[in-house]
Protein backbone atom coordinates (compact mmCIF):
# COMPACT_ATOMS: atom_id res chain seq x y z
CA UNK A 1 0.00 0.00 0.00
CA UNK A 2 2.92 2.33 0.52
CA UNK A 3 3.91 1.29 -2.97
CA UNK A 4 1.83 4.08 -4.42
CA UNK A 5 4.16 6.79 -3.21
CA UNK A 6 7.32 4.73 -3.12
CA UNK A 7 8.81 6.37 -6.19
CA UNK A 8 8.23 9.83 -4.81
CA UNK A 9 9.50 9.11 -1.34
CA UNK A 10 12.61 7.19 -2.27
CA UNK A 11 13.98 9.85 -4.58
CA UNK A 12 13.99 13.13 -2.70
CA UNK A 13 17.73 13.59 -2.97
CA UNK A 14 17.85 13.24 -6.73
CA UNK A 15 14.90 15.60 -7.02
CA UNK A 16 16.66 18.12 -4.81
CA UNK A 17 19.79 17.90 -6.94
CA UNK A 18 17.69 18.58 -10.02
CA UNK A 19 16.32 21.72 -8.36
CA UNK A 20 19.73 23.10 -7.32
CA UNK A 21 20.68 26.44 -8.83
CA UNK A 22 23.11 25.86 -11.66
CA UNK A 23 24.70 28.27 -14.12
CA UNK A 24 22.32 28.96 -17.00
CA UNK A 25 23.98 27.08 -19.78
CA UNK A 26 22.81 24.79 -22.51
CA UNK A 27 24.57 21.75 -21.03
CA UNK A 28 23.04 22.13 -17.58
CA UNK A 29 19.64 22.72 -19.18
CA UNK A 30 19.93 19.60 -21.28
CA UNK A 31 21.38 17.59 -18.42
CA UNK A 32 18.53 18.58 -16.15
CA UNK A 33 15.98 17.73 -18.81
CA UNK A 34 17.57 14.33 -19.25
CA UNK A 35 17.60 13.75 -15.49
CA UNK A 36 13.94 14.63 -15.15
CA UNK A 37 13.06 12.48 -18.15
CA UNK A 38 14.86 9.49 -16.65
CA UNK A 39 13.23 10.09 -13.26
CA UNK A 40 9.79 10.20 -14.84
CA UNK A 41 10.57 7.08 -16.83
CA UNK A 42 11.71 5.30 -13.69
CA UNK A 43 8.62 6.41 -11.77
CA UNK A 44 6.29 5.39 -14.58
CA UNK A 45 8.00 2.03 -14.98
CA UNK A 46 7.73 1.32 -11.27
CA UNK A 47 4.09 2.42 -11.26
CA UNK A 48 3.31 0.17 -14.24
CA UNK A 49 4.91 -2.83 -12.52
CA UNK A 50 3.06 -2.12 -9.27
CA UNK A 51 -0.24 -1.82 -11.12
CA UNK A 52 0.33 -5.09 -12.97
CA UNK A 53 1.42 -6.76 -9.74
CA UNK A 54 -1.67 -5.57 -7.88
CA UNK A 55 -3.98 -6.47 -10.77
CA UNK A 56 -2.64 -10.03 -10.78
CA UNK A 57 -2.19 -10.59 -7.04
CA UNK A 58 -5.60 -9.15 -6.15
CA UNK A 59 -7.43 -10.84 -8.98
CA UNK A 60 -10.86 -11.77 -7.66
CA UNK A 61 -10.48 -9.80 -4.41
CA UNK A 62 -13.59 -7.74 -3.63
CA UNK A 63 -15.03 -8.74 -6.97
CA UNK A 64 -18.42 -7.23 -6.26
CA UNK A 65 -16.81 -3.84 -5.73
CA UNK A 66 -14.19 -3.87 -8.47
CA UNK A 67 -16.32 -5.35 -11.28
CA UNK A 68 -18.89 -2.53 -11.21
CA UNK A 69 -16.00 -0.07 -11.18
CA UNK A 70 -14.53 -1.67 -14.31
CA UNK A 71 -17.95 -1.55 -15.97
CA UNK A 72 -18.22 2.13 -15.07
CA UNK A 73 -14.79 2.83 -16.59
CA UNK A 74 -15.65 0.94 -19.78
CA UNK A 75 -18.76 3.09 -20.02
CA UNK A 76 -16.80 6.27 -19.31
CA UNK A 77 -13.94 5.57 -21.73
CA UNK A 78 -16.00 3.68 -24.29
CA UNK A 79 -19.75 3.63 -24.64
CA UNK A 80 -20.28 7.24 -23.58
CA UNK A 81 -17.87 8.44 -26.29
CA UNK A 82 -19.45 6.37 -29.04
CA UNK A 83 -21.67 9.14 -30.54
CA UNK A 84 -18.69 11.45 -30.86
CA UNK A 85 -16.70 8.65 -32.44
CA UNK A 86 -19.37 7.92 -35.02
CA UNK A 87 -19.25 11.56 -36.04
CA UNK A 88 -15.44 11.50 -36.18
CA UNK A 89 -15.50 8.28 -38.21
CA UNK A 90 -17.75 9.89 -40.83
CA UNK A 91 -15.35 12.81 -41.01
CA UNK A 92 -12.34 10.53 -41.23
CA UNK A 93 -13.92 8.58 -44.09
CA UNK A 94 -14.52 11.85 -45.91
CA UNK A 95 -11.01 13.14 -45.29
CA UNK A 96 -9.24 10.01 -46.43
CA UNK A 97 -11.53 8.85 -49.25
CA UNK A 98 -12.87 12.21 -50.35
CA UNK A 99 -9.36 13.53 -50.82
CA UNK A 100 -7.67 10.47 -52.26
CA UNK A 101 -10.40 9.28 -54.61
CA UNK A 102 -10.15 12.21 -56.98
CA UNK A 103 -6.37 11.83 -57.18
CA UNK A 104 -6.44 8.06 -57.55
CA UNK A 105 -8.96 8.26 -60.40
CA UNK A 106 -6.80 10.87 -62.14
CA UNK A 107 -3.80 8.54 -62.20
CA UNK A 108 -5.99 5.50 -62.85
CA UNK A 109 -5.11 3.85 -59.55
CA UNK A 110 -8.61 3.49 -58.16
CA UNK A 111 -7.81 -0.16 -57.40
CA UNK A 112 -5.65 1.05 -54.52
CA UNK A 113 -8.52 2.72 -52.69
CA UNK A 114 -8.90 -0.19 -50.26
CA UNK A 115 -5.17 -0.37 -49.65
CA UNK A 116 -5.00 3.33 -48.87
CA UNK A 117 -7.91 2.92 -46.51
CA UNK A 118 -6.26 0.05 -44.68
CA UNK A 119 -2.86 1.69 -44.36
CA UNK A 120 -4.13 5.09 -43.33
CA UNK A 121 -7.16 4.29 -41.24
CA UNK A 122 -6.69 0.79 -39.89
CA UNK A 123 -2.99 0.94 -39.17
CA UNK A 124 -2.34 4.57 -38.31
CA UNK A 125 -5.06 7.16 -37.98
CA UNK A 126 -7.74 4.99 -36.38
CA UNK A 127 -5.80 3.93 -33.30
CA UNK A 128 -3.96 7.23 -32.88
CA UNK A 129 -7.02 9.46 -33.26
CA UNK A 130 -8.92 7.25 -30.81
CA UNK A 131 -6.10 7.39 -28.29
CA UNK A 132 -5.85 11.19 -28.52
CA UNK A 133 -9.59 11.71 -28.16
CA UNK A 134 -9.87 9.33 -25.21
CA UNK A 135 -6.89 11.09 -23.63
CA UNK A 136 -8.56 14.46 -24.09
CA UNK A 137 -11.95 13.41 -22.78
CA UNK A 138 -11.18 10.81 -20.11
CA UNK A 139 -7.46 10.96 -19.41
CA UNK A 140 -7.58 14.58 -18.28
CA UNK A 141 -10.56 13.84 -16.05
CA UNK A 142 -8.54 10.98 -14.55
CA UNK A 143 -5.65 13.20 -13.49
CA UNK A 144 -7.96 15.83 -12.05
CA UNK A 145 -10.11 13.34 -10.14
CA UNK A 146 -7.20 11.38 -8.73
CA UNK A 147 -5.06 14.47 -8.11
CA UNK A 148 -7.88 16.11 -6.16
CA UNK A 149 -8.51 12.90 -4.22
CA UNK A 150 -4.83 12.72 -3.39
CA UNK A 151 -4.65 16.35 -2.35
CA UNK A 152 -7.73 15.98 -0.13
CA UNK A 153 -6.17 13.02 1.68
CA UNK A 154 -8.63 10.48 0.31
CA UNK A 155 -5.80 8.12 -0.55
CA UNK A 156 -4.69 7.95 3.08
CA UNK A 157 -8.32 7.38 4.02
CA UNK A 158 -8.41 4.38 1.67
CA UNK A 159 -5.21 3.02 3.17
CA UNK A 160 -6.59 3.48 6.68
CA UNK A 161 -9.54 1.30 5.68
CA UNK A 162 -7.19 -1.37 4.36
CA UNK A 163 -8.22 -0.71 0.75
CA UNK A 164 -5.33 -0.77 -1.68
CA UNK A 165 -5.58 2.56 -3.59
CA UNK A 166 -3.94 1.02 -6.66
CA UNK A 167 -6.45 -1.80 -6.67
CA UNK A 168 -9.44 0.46 -6.09
CA UNK A 169 -8.50 3.52 -8.15
CA UNK A 170 -5.96 2.49 -10.80
CA UNK A 171 -6.70 -1.09 -11.86
CA UNK A 172 -10.32 -0.42 -12.97
CA UNK A 173 -9.22 2.66 -14.90
CA UNK A 174 -6.42 0.81 -16.67
CA UNK A 175 -8.63 -2.12 -17.66
CA UNK A 176 -11.54 0.13 -18.60
CA UNK A 177 -9.45 2.44 -20.71
CA UNK A 178 -7.58 -0.35 -22.51
CA UNK A 179 -10.88 -1.99 -23.44
CA UNK A 180 -12.45 1.38 -24.26
CA UNK A 181 -9.71 2.46 -26.66
CA UNK A 182 -9.78 -0.96 -28.34
CA UNK A 183 -13.54 -0.98 -28.82
CA UNK A 184 -13.74 2.64 -29.96
CA UNK A 185 -10.95 2.08 -32.51
CA UNK A 186 -12.89 -0.83 -33.99
CA UNK A 187 -16.03 1.31 -34.31
CA UNK A 188 -14.05 4.22 -35.67
CA UNK A 189 -12.48 2.03 -38.36
CA UNK A 190 -15.78 0.41 -39.32
CA UNK A 191 -17.46 3.79 -39.47
CA UNK A 192 -14.67 5.30 -41.57
CA UNK A 193 -14.67 2.38 -44.00
CA UNK A 194 -18.43 2.64 -44.51
CA UNK A 195 -18.52 6.42 -44.75
CA UNK A 196 -15.51 6.24 -47.08
CA UNK A 197 -17.52 4.19 -49.53
CA UNK A 198 -20.42 6.59 -49.12
CA UNK A 199 -18.21 9.55 -50.09
CA UNK A 200 -16.75 7.65 -53.03
CA UNK A 201 -20.30 6.80 -54.13
CA UNK A 202 -21.34 10.46 -53.90
CA UNK A 203 -18.34 11.44 -56.01
CA UNK A 204 -19.57 8.95 -58.62
CA UNK A 205 -16.46 6.81 -58.51
CA UNK A 206 -17.12 3.70 -60.63
CA UNK A 207 -16.57 1.28 -57.77
CA UNK A 208 -19.04 -1.39 -56.73
CA UNK A 209 -19.36 -2.24 -53.00
CA UNK A 210 -18.16 -5.77 -53.70
CA UNK A 211 -14.96 -4.49 -55.32
CA UNK A 212 -14.37 -1.99 -52.54
CA UNK A 213 -14.64 -4.59 -49.82
CA UNK A 214 -12.60 -7.06 -51.85
CA UNK A 215 -9.84 -4.45 -52.05
CA UNK A 216 -10.07 -3.90 -48.31
CA UNK A 217 -9.95 -7.63 -47.66
CA UNK A 218 -6.98 -8.01 -49.97
CA UNK A 219 -5.05 -5.29 -48.22
CA UNK A 220 -5.71 -6.65 -44.76
CA UNK A 221 -3.72 -9.51 -43.28
CA UNK A 222 -4.19 -11.53 -40.12
CA UNK A 223 -1.31 -9.64 -38.62
CA UNK A 224 -3.26 -6.37 -38.97
CA UNK A 225 -5.96 -7.65 -36.66
CA UNK A 226 -3.50 -8.91 -34.06
CA UNK A 227 -1.37 -5.76 -34.13
CA UNK A 228 -4.43 -3.51 -34.03
CA UNK A 229 -5.64 -5.23 -30.90
CA UNK A 230 -2.25 -5.09 -29.20
CA UNK A 231 -1.66 -1.50 -30.24
CA UNK A 232 -4.99 -0.14 -29.06
CA UNK A 233 -4.82 -2.04 -25.78
CA UNK A 234 -1.32 -0.64 -25.30
CA UNK A 235 -2.54 2.90 -26.01
CA UNK A 236 -5.34 2.61 -23.47
CA UNK A 237 -3.03 1.02 -20.92
CA UNK A 238 -0.38 3.68 -21.27
CA UNK A 239 -2.79 6.63 -21.19
CA UNK A 240 -4.49 5.30 -18.06
CA UNK A 241 -1.13 4.60 -16.46
CA UNK A 242 0.41 8.00 -17.19
CA UNK A 243 -2.69 9.90 -16.10
CA UNK A 244 -3.12 7.83 -12.91
CA UNK A 245 0.59 8.17 -12.15
CA UNK A 246 0.45 11.94 -12.32
CA UNK A 247 -2.70 12.07 -10.24
CA UNK A 248 -1.71 9.59 -7.57
CA UNK A 249 1.92 8.68 -7.32
CA UNK A 250 3.21 11.89 -5.81
CA UNK A 251 1.87 13.82 -2.87
CA UNK A 252 0.00 16.72 -4.46
CA UNK A 253 -1.39 19.96 -3.19
CA UNK A 254 -4.60 21.25 -4.75
CA UNK A 255 -2.85 23.98 -6.71
CA UNK A 256 -0.51 21.43 -8.28
CA UNK A 257 -3.31 19.45 -9.92
CA UNK A 258 -3.41 21.64 -13.02
CA UNK A 259 0.34 21.31 -13.55
CA UNK A 260 0.07 17.54 -13.11
CA UNK A 261 -2.72 17.46 -15.73
CA UNK A 262 -0.59 19.34 -18.24
CA UNK A 263 2.41 17.07 -17.81
CA UNK A 264 0.23 13.97 -17.91
CA UNK A 265 -1.30 14.99 -21.24
CA UNK A 266 2.07 15.88 -22.76
CA UNK A 267 3.66 12.64 -21.60
CA UNK A 268 0.70 10.55 -22.75
CA UNK A 269 0.93 12.02 -26.24
CA UNK A 270 4.67 11.37 -26.40
CA UNK A 271 4.23 7.83 -25.07
CA UNK A 272 1.51 7.06 -27.63
CA UNK A 273 3.59 8.40 -30.49
CA UNK A 274 6.57 6.34 -29.34
CA UNK A 275 4.43 3.19 -29.21
CA UNK A 276 3.10 4.04 -32.64
CA UNK A 277 6.66 4.38 -33.97
CA UNK A 278 7.45 0.98 -32.51
CA UNK A 279 4.52 -0.55 -34.39
CA UNK A 280 5.51 1.16 -37.63
CA UNK A 281 8.86 -0.62 -37.45
CA UNK A 282 7.04 -3.91 -36.86
CA UNK A 283 4.87 -3.27 -39.96
CA UNK A 284 7.91 -2.35 -42.03
CA UNK A 285 9.83 -5.43 -40.93
CA UNK A 286 7.04 -7.85 -41.82
Amino acid at each position, binding site marked *: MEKGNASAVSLPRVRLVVRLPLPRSLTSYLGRGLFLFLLTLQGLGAFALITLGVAISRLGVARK*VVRPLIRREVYRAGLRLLPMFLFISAALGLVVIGQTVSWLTRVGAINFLGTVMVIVVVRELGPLVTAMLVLARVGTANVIELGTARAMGEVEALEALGIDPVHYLVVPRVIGMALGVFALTVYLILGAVLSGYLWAFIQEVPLRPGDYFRQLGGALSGLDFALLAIKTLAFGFIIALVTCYHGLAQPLRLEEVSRATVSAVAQSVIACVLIDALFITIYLLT
Partner: protein
Amino acid sequence: MTDQPPTQANVPAIEMTDVAVNAMRDPNTLVTEGINWTVNAGDYWVVAGLHGTGKSDFLMLTGGLMAPRRGRYRFFGEEMPIFEEARLKERLRLGVVFDGGRLFNHLNVAENVALPLRYHHNLSRTEGAAAVGELLECTGLTPWAESRPGTLGRSWQKRAGLARALALEPEVLLVDDPLAGLDPQHVHWWLGFLDQLSKGHRLMHDRPLTLVVTTAEFQPWKGHARQFAVLKNHGFAALGLWGKLEAASEVLVRELLTERTPTE
Protein backbone atom coordinates in the same frame (compact mmCIF):
# COMPACT_ATOMS: atom_id res chain seq x y z
CA MET B 1 -14.41 -9.27 12.03
CA THR B 2 -16.32 -11.44 14.50
CA ASP B 3 -14.05 -14.44 14.07
CA GLN B 4 -11.02 -12.68 15.53
CA PRO B 5 -9.35 -14.15 18.59
CA PRO B 6 -10.27 -12.38 21.83
CA THR B 7 -7.89 -9.64 22.88
CA GLN B 8 -5.28 -10.91 25.28
CA ALA B 9 -5.29 -8.84 28.42
CA ASN B 10 -1.53 -8.84 28.79
CA VAL B 11 -0.69 -7.49 25.32
CA PRO B 12 -1.01 -3.71 25.18
CA ALA B 13 -3.05 -2.31 22.29
CA ILE B 14 -0.43 0.29 21.45
CA GLU B 15 3.15 0.17 22.62
CA MET B 16 5.63 2.81 21.47
CA THR B 17 9.28 2.78 22.44
CA ASP B 18 11.38 5.86 21.67
CA VAL B 19 9.34 6.60 18.54
CA ALA B 20 10.13 9.60 16.35
CA VAL B 21 7.46 10.96 13.98
CA ASN B 22 7.98 12.46 10.52
CA ALA B 23 5.67 14.96 8.91
CA MET B 24 3.20 13.19 6.61
CA ARG B 25 3.60 15.81 3.88
CA ASP B 26 7.37 16.02 4.03
CA PRO B 27 9.16 12.83 5.12
CA ASN B 28 12.35 14.76 5.84
CA THR B 29 10.90 16.87 8.65
CA LEU B 30 10.94 15.58 12.19
CA VAL B 31 7.81 16.47 14.13
CA THR B 32 8.03 14.69 17.48
CA GLU B 33 10.51 12.30 19.05
CA GLY B 34 11.08 10.25 22.15
CA ILE B 35 7.54 8.90 22.43
CA ASN B 36 7.26 6.19 25.05
CA TRP B 37 3.64 5.29 25.41
CA THR B 38 1.53 2.30 26.30
CA VAL B 39 -2.19 2.07 25.63
CA ASN B 40 -3.98 -0.90 27.14
CA ALA B 41 -7.14 -2.38 25.72
CA GLY B 42 -10.14 -0.47 27.03
CA ASP B 43 -8.23 2.79 27.66
CA TYR B 44 -9.67 6.16 26.67
CA TRP B 45 -6.81 8.55 25.94
CA VAL B 46 -6.92 12.20 25.05
CA VAL B 47 -3.75 13.60 23.49
CA ALA B 48 -3.67 17.38 23.46
CA GLY B 49 -1.38 19.70 21.58
CA LEU B 50 -1.49 23.18 20.18
CA HIS B 51 -1.86 23.65 16.43
CA GLY B 52 1.33 22.75 14.60
CA THR B 53 2.65 20.35 17.24
CA GLY B 54 1.96 17.44 14.93
CA LYS B 55 -1.24 15.97 16.34
CA SER B 56 -2.34 14.73 12.94
CA ASP B 57 1.10 13.37 12.04
CA PHE B 58 1.20 11.59 15.38
CA LEU B 59 -2.21 10.09 14.69
CA MET B 60 -1.23 9.08 11.13
CA LEU B 61 1.72 7.19 12.57
CA THR B 62 -0.44 5.58 15.25
CA GLY B 63 -2.94 4.71 12.53
CA GLY B 64 -0.18 2.82 10.72
CA LEU B 65 -0.20 5.10 7.67
CA MET B 66 3.50 5.83 7.89
CA ALA B 67 6.54 4.25 9.45
CA PRO B 68 8.23 5.77 12.50
CA ARG B 69 11.48 7.52 11.74
CA ARG B 70 13.05 5.78 14.72
CA GLY B 71 11.99 3.50 17.49
CA ARG B 72 9.49 0.70 17.67
CA TYR B 73 5.71 0.76 17.46
CA ARG B 74 3.75 -2.36 18.21
CA PHE B 75 0.04 -2.75 17.82
CA PHE B 76 -1.29 -5.75 19.78
CA GLY B 77 2.25 -7.10 19.60
CA GLU B 78 2.47 -6.68 15.81
CA GLU B 79 5.17 -4.49 14.32
CA MET B 80 3.62 -1.40 12.68
CA PRO B 81 3.11 -0.16 10.03
CA ILE B 82 1.45 -3.11 8.36
CA PHE B 83 1.40 -2.96 4.59
CA GLU B 84 1.49 -6.66 3.77
CA GLU B 85 -1.64 -8.41 2.68
CA ALA B 86 -1.05 -11.29 5.06
CA ARG B 87 -1.23 -9.14 8.22
CA LEU B 88 -4.02 -6.88 6.99
CA LYS B 89 -6.47 -8.45 9.40
CA GLU B 90 -4.39 -7.27 12.36
CA ARG B 91 -4.30 -3.79 10.96
CA LEU B 92 -8.05 -3.62 10.52
CA ARG B 93 -8.42 -3.94 14.29
CA LEU B 94 -7.54 -0.25 14.17
CA GLY B 95 -9.90 2.42 12.87
CA VAL B 96 -9.01 6.01 12.03
CA VAL B 97 -11.38 8.99 11.97
CA PHE B 98 -9.70 11.84 10.12
CA ASP B 99 -10.00 15.50 10.86
CA GLY B 100 -12.80 16.69 8.57
CA GLY B 101 -13.87 13.15 7.74
CA ARG B 102 -11.91 12.82 4.48
CA LEU B 103 -14.88 11.27 2.74
CA PHE B 104 -14.59 10.04 -0.82
CA ASN B 105 -16.09 12.84 -2.84
CA HIS B 106 -17.24 10.67 -5.74
CA LEU B 107 -19.45 8.57 -3.44
CA ASN B 108 -22.47 9.64 -1.41
CA VAL B 109 -22.55 9.27 2.37
CA ALA B 110 -24.13 5.81 2.39
CA GLU B 111 -21.67 4.56 -0.24
CA ASN B 112 -18.78 6.03 1.75
CA VAL B 113 -19.83 4.11 4.84
CA ALA B 114 -20.54 0.97 2.81
CA LEU B 115 -17.23 0.92 0.90
CA PRO B 116 -15.01 -0.73 3.57
CA LEU B 117 -17.71 -3.31 4.30
CA ARG B 118 -18.27 -4.08 0.64
CA TYR B 119 -14.56 -4.24 -0.17
CA HIS B 120 -13.50 -6.49 2.68
CA HIS B 121 -16.53 -8.78 2.70
CA ASN B 122 -17.10 -8.74 -1.07
CA LEU B 123 -20.67 -7.48 -0.91
CA SER B 124 -22.85 -6.07 -3.65
CA ARG B 125 -24.58 -2.70 -3.31
CA THR B 126 -27.65 -4.16 -1.64
CA GLU B 127 -25.99 -6.75 0.58
CA GLY B 128 -24.41 -4.36 3.06
CA ALA B 129 -27.37 -1.98 3.18
CA ALA B 130 -28.75 -3.13 6.56
CA ALA B 131 -25.47 -2.66 8.41
CA VAL B 132 -24.91 0.71 6.72
CA GLY B 133 -28.43 1.84 7.62
CA GLU B 134 -27.78 1.05 11.25
CA LEU B 135 -24.48 2.94 11.27
CA LEU B 136 -26.12 5.96 9.66
CA GLU B 137 -28.98 5.88 12.12
CA CYS B 138 -26.71 5.77 15.16
CA THR B 139 -24.74 8.75 13.87
CA GLY B 140 -27.87 10.69 12.89
CA LEU B 141 -26.92 10.67 9.22
CA THR B 142 -29.94 8.89 7.76
CA PRO B 143 -31.42 12.08 6.18
CA TRP B 144 -28.12 12.66 4.35
CA ALA B 145 -27.55 9.07 3.18
CA GLU B 146 -27.91 9.99 -0.49
CA SER B 147 -26.06 13.32 -0.29
CA ARG B 148 -22.61 13.90 -1.66
CA PRO B 149 -20.03 14.89 0.97
CA GLY B 150 -19.58 18.27 -0.69
CA THR B 151 -23.16 19.27 0.11
CA LEU B 152 -22.80 18.38 3.80
CA GLY B 153 -21.74 20.65 6.61
CA ARG B 154 -18.32 20.00 8.10
CA SER B 155 -19.73 18.68 11.36
CA TRP B 156 -21.79 16.07 9.51
CA GLN B 157 -18.82 15.10 7.35
CA LYS B 158 -16.93 14.33 10.54
CA ARG B 159 -19.75 12.10 11.71
CA ALA B 160 -19.79 10.30 8.37
CA GLY B 161 -16.04 9.72 8.80
CA LEU B 162 -16.79 8.18 12.19
CA ALA B 163 -19.52 5.95 10.76
CA ARG B 164 -17.16 4.79 8.01
CA ALA B 165 -14.39 3.97 10.50
CA LEU B 166 -16.85 1.98 12.64
CA ALA B 167 -18.10 -0.06 9.68
CA LEU B 168 -15.31 -2.61 10.06
CA GLU B 169 -15.90 -2.88 13.83
CA PRO B 170 -12.38 -2.00 14.95
CA GLU B 171 -11.10 -2.65 18.47
CA VAL B 172 -9.08 0.54 18.68
CA LEU B 173 -10.38 3.83 17.32
CA LEU B 174 -8.23 6.88 16.69
CA VAL B 175 -10.09 10.16 16.32
CA ASP B 176 -8.35 13.27 15.03
CA ASP B 177 -9.54 16.45 16.72
CA PRO B 178 -13.27 15.64 16.68
CA LEU B 179 -14.39 18.75 18.55
CA ALA B 180 -12.61 21.37 16.42
CA GLY B 181 -15.06 23.95 15.09
CA LEU B 182 -18.23 22.24 16.32
CA ASP B 183 -21.23 23.92 17.96
CA PRO B 184 -22.11 22.90 21.55
CA GLN B 185 -24.81 20.51 20.38
CA HIS B 186 -22.39 18.54 18.21
CA VAL B 187 -19.74 18.65 20.94
CA HIS B 188 -22.26 17.15 23.35
CA TRP B 189 -23.15 14.43 20.83
CA TRP B 190 -19.53 13.48 20.21
CA LEU B 191 -18.64 13.29 23.89
CA GLY B 192 -21.70 11.19 24.60
CA PHE B 193 -21.19 8.88 21.63
CA LEU B 194 -17.49 8.32 22.37
CA ASP B 195 -18.42 7.55 26.00
CA GLN B 196 -20.86 4.92 24.76
CA LEU B 197 -18.24 3.44 22.44
CA SER B 198 -15.76 3.32 25.27
CA LYS B 199 -18.23 1.50 27.50
CA GLY B 200 -19.60 -0.73 24.76
CA HIS B 201 -22.07 0.32 22.07
CA ARG B 202 -24.60 -1.97 20.46
CA LEU B 203 -23.05 -1.19 17.07
CA MET B 204 -19.85 -2.82 18.32
CA HIS B 205 -21.81 -5.67 19.94
CA ASP B 206 -21.34 -4.05 23.37
CA ARG B 207 -17.60 -4.61 23.18
CA PRO B 208 -15.72 -1.71 24.82
CA LEU B 209 -13.64 0.19 22.30
CA THR B 210 -10.14 1.46 23.03
CA LEU B 211 -10.11 5.16 22.17
CA VAL B 212 -7.35 7.64 21.37
CA VAL B 213 -8.51 11.17 20.66
CA THR B 214 -6.46 14.24 19.83
CA THR B 215 -7.61 17.69 20.83
CA ALA B 216 -6.49 21.26 21.24
CA GLU B 217 -7.90 21.66 24.76
CA PHE B 218 -8.42 19.34 27.70
CA GLN B 219 -11.40 20.96 29.38
CA PRO B 220 -14.28 19.38 27.39
CA TRP B 221 -12.90 15.89 28.06
CA LYS B 222 -13.02 16.16 31.83
CA GLY B 223 -15.17 13.33 33.16
CA HIS B 224 -15.16 11.61 29.76
CA ALA B 225 -11.64 10.46 28.91
CA ARG B 226 -9.68 8.47 31.45
CA GLN B 227 -6.05 9.06 30.45
CA PHE B 228 -4.35 12.22 29.22
CA ALA B 229 -1.16 13.07 27.34
CA VAL B 230 0.38 16.17 25.76
CA LEU B 231 2.35 16.80 22.61
CA LYS B 232 4.76 19.65 23.18
CA ASN B 233 7.52 21.10 21.03
CA HIS B 234 9.06 17.93 19.59
CA GLY B 235 8.17 15.82 22.61
CA PHE B 236 5.42 13.72 24.10
CA ALA B 237 4.42 13.26 27.72
CA ALA B 238 1.88 10.75 28.95
CA LEU B 239 0.44 12.35 32.06
CA GLY B 240 -2.16 9.79 33.08
CA LEU B 241 -5.28 10.57 35.05
CA TRP B 242 -7.07 13.92 35.22
CA GLY B 243 -5.74 14.52 38.73
CA LYS B 244 -2.15 14.49 37.45
CA LEU B 245 -3.16 16.90 34.74
CA GLU B 246 -4.50 19.40 37.21
CA ALA B 247 -1.45 18.96 39.41
CA ALA B 248 0.94 19.58 36.50
CA SER B 249 2.71 22.91 36.76
CA GLU B 250 3.87 23.18 33.14
CA VAL B 251 2.73 26.29 31.32
CA LEU B 252 1.71 24.31 28.26
CA VAL B 253 -0.53 21.95 30.22
CA ARG B 254 -2.15 24.91 31.95
CA GLU B 255 -2.69 26.51 28.55
CA LEU B 256 -4.27 23.37 27.17
CA LEU B 257 -6.54 23.41 30.19
CA THR B 258 -7.54 26.83 28.79
CA GLU B 259 -6.39 28.64 31.88
CA ARG B 260 -4.57 31.87 31.29
CA THR B 261 -1.06 32.21 32.61
CA PRO B 262 -0.46 35.22 34.91
CA THR B 263 1.82 36.92 32.38
CA GLU B 264 -0.97 37.20 29.80
